[in-house]
């Protein structure tokens, strides 16, 4: 029998106990995988967003408007290559599904966000169709929207000139992200600002934010500072941040999700540590005479220590793998069911953190019983003292 076989055989010597221990490890890692994915989700738009863009909002808050006339002034600031603007439309699908809809200028969007991938013909159609709308792949998949459809949307902010809040747009394109991270962000819709601005009842010529694409090599902090300095002490003071800071700031307003996730995870792992640790201690206690026999046969103290740690590690790793695999499946299922609104991706990053957790757990639960096994005195153990 190989050493590996020996460890595996011991694992399920007590079938019920082995299985139950394994199952509790599995459920802990299932939760671990899902919570990590949530954590990543809320920090999304953070890690992969480069420092190539800065975002300008009104200094008081991004909910208040900036006039459209800043556009030319911002474009003239050194270091800025392209500028676009966005206005939150407050889109609502059917009665109660809020959407992430922005009014923007198609050509500007295309120039500032090369990360959105769509056939040129569709970009041209978007620019040429006043009532045009383009939507991210995830949105289109979720609602089953096809290019060419007329999409009725309500706005919970902007009434039309006739007072009604029922808008309708022609779906002229569906965009993808340039890579997996960006694909996950394809949960937005864009509409034509020119049409929006003319048709809505108030707020003519106002936008929520400007997004500036920087020239190659321009220092984001310096450009941001230059923009804010340009409008200082005017009626429209601005606050410019890198896109990354802007996104982080936005998520932070919801609350410290990271903190909550960490709290739950530490509670879960503390509990798990105890459960698995206890099982290991119990199984070593029961096998004291056996371990003594092993030592008598010539196995060194170190190899007995190794056996016990390997057993703990086997529980943690086997359970961890199954748990993470389940989490991956559940995540994919949720993603398919809820579409873009909860893109739970248990990805490579989550798996890597998971592996680190498995190793740490193995040592934490295995070390004490293993040391006990190592220090075992053969004579006492065989005599049952």
């Amino acid at each position, binding site marked *: 029998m190989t050493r590996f076989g020996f460890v595996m055989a011991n694992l399920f010597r007590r079938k019920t106990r082995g299985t139950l221990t394994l199952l509790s490890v599995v459920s802990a890692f299932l939760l671990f995988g899902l919570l990590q994915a949530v954590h990543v989700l809320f920090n999304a738009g953070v890690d992969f967003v480069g420092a190539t863009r800065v975002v300008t909002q009104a200094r*008081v808050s991004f909910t208040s408007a900036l006039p459209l006339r800043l556009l030319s002034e911002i474009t003239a600031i050194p270091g800025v290559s392209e500028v676009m603007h966005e206005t939150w439309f407050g889109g609502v699908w059917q009665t109660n599904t809020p959407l992430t809809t922005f009014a923007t200028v198609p050509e500007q969007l295309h120039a500032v966000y090369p990360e959105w991938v769509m056939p040129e013909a569709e970009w041209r159609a978007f620019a040429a169709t006043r009532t045009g709308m383009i939507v991210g792949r995830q949105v289109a998949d979720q609602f089953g929207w096809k290019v060419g459809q007329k999409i009725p949307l309500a706005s919970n902010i902007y009434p039309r000139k006739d007072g009604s809040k029922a808008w309708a747009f022609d779906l002229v394109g569906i965009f993808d992200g340039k890579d997996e991270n960006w694909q996950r962000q394809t949960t937005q819709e864009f509409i034509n600002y020119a049409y929006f601005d003319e048709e809505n009842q108030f707020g003519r010529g106002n936008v929520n934010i400007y997004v500036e694409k920087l020239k190659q090599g321009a220092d984001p902090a310096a450009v941001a500072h230059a923009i804010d300095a340009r409008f200082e002490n005017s009626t429209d003071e601005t606050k410019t941040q890198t896109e990354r800071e802007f996104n982080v*700031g936005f998520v932070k307003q919801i609350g410290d999700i990271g903190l909550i996730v960490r709290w739950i995870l530490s509670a879960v792992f503390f*509990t798990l540590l105890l459960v698995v640790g206890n099982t290991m201690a119990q199984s070593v206690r029961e096998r004291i005479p056996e371990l003594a026999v092993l030592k008598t046969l010539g196995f060194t103290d170190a190899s007995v220590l190794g056996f016990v740690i390997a057993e703990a590690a086997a529980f943690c790793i086997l359970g961890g793998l199954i748990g993470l695999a389940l989490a991956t499946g559940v995540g994919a299922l949720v993603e398919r069911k809820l579409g873009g609104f909860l893109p739970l991706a248990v990805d490579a990053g989550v798996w890597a953190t998971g592996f680190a957790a498995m190793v740490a757990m193995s040592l934490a639960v295995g070390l004490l019983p293993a040391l006990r096994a190592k220090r075992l005195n053969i004579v006492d153990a065989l005599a049952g003292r």
Partner: protein
Amino acid sequence: MWKQCLAITRLNLYSIPRRWSSAIVIVVGLAGVVAVFCALLAMTEGVRTTLRATGQPGNVIVLRAGSSAELNSGLSREAVTLIREAPGLARDAAGHPLASGEIIVVTELLKRGETSGGANVSLRGVDPRAGFALRPQLRIIAGRRFTPGLRELIVGSGLKREFQGAALGQTLRTRGSVWTIVGVFESGDAHDSELWADIDVAQSTFGRTGFSSVLAATDTAPGSLHVFEDHLTSDPRLNVDVQSESDYFDSQTRTFRATIGVVAGVVTFIMGLGAVFAALNTMYAAVAARVREIATLRAIGFAGGAVLVSVMAESLALALVGGVIGVLIAYLLFNGLTVSTLSDNFTQLVFSFRMTPRLVARGLLIALAVGMIGGFLPALRAARLPITTALRAS
């Protein structure tokens, strides 16, 4: 039978201290589950009570039709005049209708400990007379009310606690204007997360001619709410929604509450599953360690049912202890903890975690359920032990 059950159960419970190292698995496992469950739900409970407390009975809020929040709403000066003169409203001693035309302006403040970023907070312009009369729950706890006509602010206690630069005497610069904070108020509801100013000053400073909403008190006479509502909705010059103040505030963080509810459900379910496995493990071990003892009891005439009950009782007792510890942990760590989140108005709502008796009961119920499931199979095994072989077990 009863006596038998009691006797063995007592025997079991008294022997727990001798087996504490495995018993503790159930206790700690459930403490973890219950603590997480209670902490998450204490958060939604806190938000809910904060918002629900905001509505005074009889108060109604008028928004532009279809607006879900004050921020999205807008009413012209003429509309507000029409609303104030509508029948069905209560009047103050001087005969003025109890109605306050208000605006919400969003401004940014830094949370405590932040040096960059900033979070949205609401600056509410209120009618200096009706605004306070309509909210009798509001008390000035430091300083004084703002003076009508001056750029003065009073700040909600929650905001003052959670954000920088909002203390008494400080000046606040926003949209090119400078305001002095002259008072701190406490109302125990959503207004604690707001800055208040005189409506006229706010309108002229921020260049707004209209209003966001009208808060009004309806007359105590029965049916006056309907009179008021019918009057407004039948007036062709108006396009407004009327709802009770409490309904409005209750709807403000529905999404947030629903999300936390789902998270709490999923997390508790998976953790609970893990705890069931751990409990099963512990109870199987507990039964295995006492095979001979149980067989002896059976041999001298104790019934299988009594053994079953005793094992279940042990599991439930341990689970209950775990649940109580979990509730205590959640209570000590989280009850009263003040945090803030984004409301539908897109501004920060400061609230405190709140452990309610109902929440405690639900937490303990979960603990007992896990204890019950985790104890049943091992109890069944104990009750069905073949006496003769079990007696010879080593």
